[in-house]
């Protein structure tokens, strides 16, 4: 079974870490994930930019509505995600609109990725 482990934390706190604190956490995490990586069981790992960099596409209306900031509703649940490589936010939004056309309802939050490690998991 493949599992996604979604990381939640207080953003104002994490972005108050000094560089030394941040580096310390990152290097400890690297050590902690080594066992899975060596066994070829570690998939992609990503760290997201803060929610201030997020844009949300509400697709429960036609045409979908672009809103600044993260997805902040509590009625809906996180059900999946895509990782795409785009030159601009507009390009990412266009792709999200394509998806929205065939799967309306709910929302997509578009959040830039600040750190990405493709992973070692065997397909």
């Amino acid at each position, binding site marked *: 079974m493949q599992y996604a482990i979604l990381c939640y934390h207080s953003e104002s706190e994490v972005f*108050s870490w000094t560089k030394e604190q941040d580096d310390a956490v990152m290097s400890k995490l690297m050590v902690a994930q080594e066992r899975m990586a060596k066994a070829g069981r570690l998939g992609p790992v990503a760290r997201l930019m803060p929610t201030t960099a997020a844009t949300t596409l509400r697709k429960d209306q036609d045409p979908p509505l672009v809103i600044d900031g993260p997805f902040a509703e509590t009625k809906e649940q996180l059900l999946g995600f895509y990782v795409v490589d785009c030159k601009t936010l507009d390009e990412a939004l266009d792709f999200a609109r394509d998806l929205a056309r065939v799967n309306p309802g709910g929302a997509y939050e578009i959040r*830039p990725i600040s750190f990405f490690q493709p992973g070692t998991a065997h397909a």
Partner: protein
Amino acid sequence: MTDLAWINTTLTSARPQAVAALLRYFRDLDTAEEAFQESCLRALKTWPQNGPPRDPAAWLIMVGRNSAIDAVRHRSKQEALPADDVVSDLDDAESAIAERLDDAHYRDDILRLLFICCHPDLPVTQQIALALRVVSGLSVKEIARAFLSSESAVEQRITRAKRRVSDAEVPFATPGAPERAQRLAAVAAMIYLLFNEGYSASGGDAHLRAPLCDEAIRLSRLLLRLFPSEPEIMGLTALLLLQHARAPARLDADGAIVLLEDQDRSLWDRKMIAEGLALIDKAVRHKRPGPYQVQAAIAALHSQADQPEATDWSQIDLLYATLERLQPSPIVTLNRAVAVAKVRGPEAALAMIEPLASQLSGYFYFFGVKGGLLMQLGRSEEARVAFDRAIAVANTAAEAAHIRMHLDRLTKDSAAGARATS
């Protein structure tokens, strides 16, 4: 890294929210700060054993509020009862949690707290000192170190600022839209000044002042979280990130300034640049350009050039032209002239800055640019005069040292010229 260091980070990150909420309850900055201080002391006692609470800000607000109310009640036993408005809100503690969920309320609390610090009556240095003390929670000692000033001077600056602020009586009612926009602009300007206070530092003191830049970025992100759809706040945050990304390359080992052209671009912080670019992307969608966005766009063009030669100077020239329209100032024109020199040559740039001479007669950078342009045109004697003037008005030793380097080069060149002709 001790647990205490982490608890301190948690307290610092919760501080703006907590002090802002406590200020709304008590309507007095000193009481709010004391209440927060008290709740921090309790946190340091109980968190190491029990672990931090799920919502540290809410915990600190509740504990701070209760302890301050206790203190007022305690005093009231000895003194006459306080007027009702001294303790403006005596609801049960649970309501603190309910209010926590009300983002709009929170937002105006924090904005009010920030706005109080940049009251127009306060001189800039007092604004920044007050914000660092009250919002960021830096100690007087830390602020004094960053300002290269004595602790007693900083203490006095903050006390004076607080007195003026309490005299000025910032209204506690929920602000209307125009008022909110006005507060937002004032706060953005204060954050930008705070950043520049750290950024313009150079020489041996640079590492002492870098925390001011980090703090400005933290406050700017906070502001953007509260006002996620404001393109100028996106622009401001992007601008700070893009400029700060270059910090590791801005000074050499001796603390001397390294010009943009000569910087080791591999030292630039790519993560900060990426975040800055992402924010500009967001801002542009609003099609409401403003000074911060334009300056961020200029910084973005620099950050996207792998080598100085790859810089898109004609685009930078156009952006400065836009900035001149949005926010006319001789300094903007001076900056534009640097781009113009690259696009249309030093002669055109010199013609552009000549009319600024009287307005910028005390400005180091003006004479630096002028000297540089004259040097490019081979007018060595005039260049020397301009550089001498630059040294005379330099603010820091590093600025002066940088200009001396140019002068040395001029002297060497003319000596070499003399040798060649003799």
